């Protein structure tokens, strides 16, 4: 081992896209590898948990953790990595805000398991077997981690130093963060390592955004042939750029798709969904309650749309149920 700074990557409840984002650094990854020793990266390297456990506390310069926290194993691992690392970076939307897995907070655990293992059309499970923390097989007792009722963002479990936003973070932002870390030029603790302005500010279609937006229906991208230069909101497509932090290089917009909010909100906003709701609802072109209701019904799932990546980090954090009621679904 050299005396290069040691870094680790770990994943919790995530899809693997964030790991892909590191690989997407392409030749820049060679600069990173030249500058640091990667001592733990389950997706790519064969180091084990026990190898990290054997290292002294605080001996890792940084650990990048992607994914939300929803199981006992994830919770234990992030606590251990926190002890070993000087700097913890929440990497990607799930770790930063709870992400897509965080939408499980609209249901209780029984509902989530039933949907995944019993009810989905593609499931074949005639015996109705569900994952259990402990199972007896041929006289052996097998254990797996326990799932929690509520999905949490990383900073709801451990102290987090920095956030790299995005689903997934862009190569440019990752490279900037790693270089700033190595150079010791990181901003104050708690910062999100991306510009603190709304996406509209850097949107290539900014000039075509009308002074006043007035919409009589919200359309899905599949329901309309989109002009490639005009503001997507002006075309009636629900774009969350106004309530989302920029820094993503407007990648979705450049692909002619609306912003879905993966970078979270700017530092002035406490609750991305509420702020997006405020902006979107005020664009409805009617002053009549029934007509307003009709126009808004073209947004079939407000929570899933406006909190797509941020439900666990929102003010309400999850669906709430009166004592005794269920949220099967």
């Amino acid at each position, binding site marked *: 081992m050299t005396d290069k700074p040691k870094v680790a990557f770990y994943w919790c409840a995530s899809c693997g896209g964030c790991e892909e984002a590191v690989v997407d650094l392409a030749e820049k990854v060679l600069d990173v590898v030249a500058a640091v020793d990667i001592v733990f990266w389950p997706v790519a390297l064969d180091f084990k948990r026990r190898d990290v456990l054997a290292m002294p506390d605080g001996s890792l310069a940084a650990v990048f953790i992607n994914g939300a926290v929803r199981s006992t194993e994830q919770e234990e691992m992030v606590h251990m990595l926190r002890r070993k690392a000087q700097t913890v970076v929440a990497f990607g939307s799930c770790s930063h805000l709870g992400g897509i897995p965080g939408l499980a907070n*609209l249901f209780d*655990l029984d509902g989530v398991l039933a949907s995944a293992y019993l009810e989905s059309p593609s499931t074949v499970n005639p*015996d109705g*077997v*569900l994952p*259990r*923390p*402990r*199972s*007896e*097989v041929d006289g052996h007792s*097998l254990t797996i981690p*326990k799932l*929690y*009722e*509520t999905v949490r963002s990383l900073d709801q479990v451990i102290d987090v130093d920095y956030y790299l936003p995005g689903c997934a973070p862009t190569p440019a932002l990752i490279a900037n963060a790693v270089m700033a870390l190595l150079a010791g030029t990181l901003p104050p603790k708690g910062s999100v390592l991306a510009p603190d302005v709304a996406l509209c500010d850097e949107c290539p279609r900014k000039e075509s955004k009308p002074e006043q937006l007035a919409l009589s229906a919200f359309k899905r991208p599949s329901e309309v042939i989109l002009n490639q230069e005009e503001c997507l909101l002006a075309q009636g497509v629900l774009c969350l750029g106004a309530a989302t932090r920029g820094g993503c290089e407007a990648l979705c917009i450049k692909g002619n798709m609306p912003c879905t909010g993966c970078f979270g909100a700017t530092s002035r*906003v*406490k*609750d991305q*969904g*509420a*702020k997006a*709701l*405020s902006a*979107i*609802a*005020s664009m*409805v072109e*009617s*002053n009549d*309650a029934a007509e*307003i*209701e009709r126009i*808004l019904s073209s*947004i079939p*799932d*407000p*929570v899933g749309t*406006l909190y797509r990546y941020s439900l666990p980090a*929102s*003010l*309400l*954090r*999850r*669906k*709430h*149920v*009166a*004592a005794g009621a269920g*949220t099967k679904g």
Partner: protein
Amino acid sequence: MPETTTEAGVAPTQFEPKIVAFFCNWCTYLAADLAGTTRLKYAPNIRVVRLMCSGRVDPQFVLEAFVKGADGVLIGGCHPGDCHYESGNYKTLRRFHLLRRMLRDLGIEDERFRLEWISASEAEPLRVAVNDMVEKVRALGPLTLAVPSERAEEPEEVAVP
């Protein structure tokens, strides 16, 4: 309201809902003021926050009120067409409809979130609206938003064939 008693004859402590009321400076707040000067009594469960316009009610304020312990949130503004700033109350109306749907999806009942148009002279409608909301929220009981603690007991062990 009628007192109910337990078998032991002791009056149970009645649940008193806490309701945060965002009233606009030009209409509903003045109605509340008028109710006071004309000695109209209404339920003391509302905590009034005066804003210049109901359009100033950021949906974040509503969520934060619930998170910080409100059992209900009431927004009061000028009647349609009467907004001091021309269109603030229409924006409130649009946001209210979407926010109520979102709250419903997050498990907060419709009765806990209410919008009323009450002009400066309408002390009596204000009294009726406040009392009605307090009774409806009282019937629902307290809003508890604690994130459920993890399961105390392990799920039953199942033998896998």
